[in-house]
Structure formats: structure tokens, C-alpha cells
């Protein structure tokens, strides 16, 4: 059974339950379908945090290696929560990587410090659209819990119900957190625009 993804660019995707049944039997075709179903979603979640295409792909690969190895060892029992399990692996892997990078990034010599222009386009993704850049920057200013809900919902395309399962929180809490995050993002974007307009006015006068 095949269903359409919400990404209109992609081909029809196979049914999750059928794919998982095939994967648990060790079926290569089913594994390929699983990668098509979830690969980009894991990638988008990783890229949202690390802002690096290559690293995001490495993290995605590492997540799928863990999934395949665990299934091969019989460590996964299908209970209808595969998506929650997959993205838990992804978030843990992502947090580990971000911690490792933050430790490596600590400068020991002041002369090696580089001043980062937070208003500059995202160099790693060649981002030139100021609106996209502003939205990314605003997401990074959210608290960890709010940011996680936003990324799981809009980058990983998880339903609110699955996010609630994933986080182990009531559905109402997840919905409230999502609304709060949207409101905070709206404020951040509006404030940034006001600041930008003032800078322009200041420069002209």
C-alpha cells in the first residue's frame, strides 16, 4: 500500500506498517522504502541544529545504522511507535554531536577567536534569503523544549500525537508549547524587523 507524503516533490511513499514488517524480515526493498520515508526528515531535523549539510548527512547515516543494527539483533519490537523511537535516536545522536562540537569549538587562545556576525547569511548552507536566515536565527533563540517541538513538528513532520509520545508528555502540553513557540517566534521576527528598520533609518540620517 502506497500513500503520498506531504512533500509534493517526492514520489509516493509506501505504507509504514507494511514497510516495517518487511524491514523486520530483513527485506532489502523494505529497507530502501524506510530510508525514503524517513531519511529526509531525519536529515532536516539534524540540519536544523548543525547547519551543515555534510554533518547532517553523517548524523542521518549514523541514526539509520543504529536502527538497522538494533533490528538485526532483535532489539526492536513493533508496537506502533517506530517513528517515536527513530526520532529519539536522532535527537540523542544530534545532542551528542552538538556537545562534541561545542567542546571542540572552545578557543584556548584568544588570537584564534573569530568574531561571528550573527546577521550574516548562513555560510554553511549558502543562505542568502534574509527572511529564511531571520527565521532560523529566531528558532535558535527559542528555549530547548520549545525548539524541539517546533523542529519535530515542522522539520521532522511528526504529528502532535507522536511528538507527545516521543516526549512522554500529555498532548495538551505539546500543543500549548507549540503555540507558545509560534508566538515567541512571531515576536522575535517582528522585533528583528523593527531593529533592522531603525538601523536603516539611523544610517540614512
Amino acid at each position, binding site marked *: 500500500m502506497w500513500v503520498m507524503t506531504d512533500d509534493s516533490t517526492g514520489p509516493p511513499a509506501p505504507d509504514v506498517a507494511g514497510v516495517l514488517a518487511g524491514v523486520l524480515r530483513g527485506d532489502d526493498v523494505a529497507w530502501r522504502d524506510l530510508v525514503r520515508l524517513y*531519511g529526509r526528515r531525519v536529515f532536516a531535523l539534524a540540519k536544523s541544529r548543525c547547519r551543515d549539510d555534510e554533518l547532517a*548527512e553523517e548524523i542521518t547515516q549514523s541514526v539509520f545504522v543504529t536502527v538497522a543494527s538494533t533490528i538485526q539483533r532483535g532489539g526492536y519490537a513493533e508496537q506502533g511507535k517506530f517513528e517515536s523511537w527513530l526520532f529519539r535516536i536522532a535527537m540523542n545522536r544530534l545532542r551528542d554531536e552538538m556537545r562534541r562540537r561545542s567542546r571542540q569549538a572552545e578557543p584556548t587562545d584568544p588570537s584564534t577567536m573569530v568574531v561571528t556576525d550573527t546577521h550574516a547569511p548562513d555560510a554553511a548552507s549558502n543562505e542568502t534569503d534574509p527572511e529564511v536566515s531571520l527565521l532560523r536565527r529566531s528558532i535558535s533563540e527559542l528555549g530547548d523544549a520549545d525548539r524541539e517541538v517546533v523542529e519535530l513538528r515542522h522539520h521532522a513532520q511528526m504529528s502532535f500525537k507522536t511528538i507527545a509520545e516521543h516526549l512522554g508528555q500529555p498532548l495538551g502540553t505539546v500543543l500549548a508549547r507549540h*503555540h507558545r513557540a509560534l508566538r515567541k517566534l512571531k515576536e522575535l521576527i517582528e522585533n528583528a524587523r523593527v531593529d533592522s528598520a531603525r538601523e536603516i533609518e539611523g544610517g540614512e540620517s
Partner: protein
Amino acid sequence: MSDNALNNPSNTPEDLRATEARLERLGHMERASVRPGFEDRLVAATAGHLKGLEADAPVVLATIRPSRARVFRLAASIAVVGAGVIGSVWLAGRGTTPVNPPQELAANDSIETDLASVNSELASLMTEGENSVAVSDEFSALESELAALETELSDFGWDEFDGLLEESL
């Protein structure tokens, strides 16, 4: 409310819909930004693990090598603490008076004190004796009596002794 209804953007408050739509576009853009051949590479790198054909990544035994500055800090800390401990032990051994001194030392001190007091008394007595006429006369009288007793003893002859012996027998 069903899960689908919950996920419907129309359930979002109107003033937040534009922000949500931006996030949806961003998410879509990120998912579409994979490099060409992404899924093929991913399948090629992971499919073997599903069949157990590829071993898990080898365990890396990492050795944490401390930096030079850290070694110096550690050495300095050990030196300071060590010097403190040695100094404390040395001072403790040097400055403390034994609570219970040896008995020999206590006895010696006592004898020395007694001797000193006797000597001083003797000296004062001798001085007094030499300077006192009365004491000198007394000495002379005592000497005379001593001489008389000696004479009486010498007069007490063997005959009287023999007589006393016979009486006792």
C-alpha cells in the same frame, strides 16, 4: 479532536498562521536540500547492518592526554600540598612537650632541687658556726667530754671484764 484535525494548520490561532506557514516552508526547504543521491548513499551505507553483514563500528579506546599546562598545574598542586604536609609533621615533632615526661628525668630534677637546697643550708650553717663564739665554746665542751669518756673506757680493764664474765656464767 482527531490527530489529523490537531495537525491541521486551520486549528492554529489566526495571528500565528503566518509564522506556522513560514516554518512549514522552512521544513520543506530543509528536506529538499539533500545532496543528489542522498537516499542511495544512505541505503548503501546502512543496508548491510540490517543483515548483520557489517560489523558495528570498532570500539575506539581513547586515551585522554592532559595538556602541558594541566600537568604543570597538577605538579604544582602536589608540590604545595606535599610541602605543607611535611612542614606540618616537622613542626609538630619539634615543638611539642611530652605530656608524660620520662620518670628518670623527673627524679633527676627532684634530686637536683633537693641537693641545691641542702647545699645552701649547709653553707649558711657553716658560716653561722664559724662566726658564733657560743657555738665554738659548745664545741670545745663537747670535745672535753669526749676525751673523758675515752679515758674511762681505757681504764675499764680486762680484769673487770673477766669478773663480769664469771658472774654471768
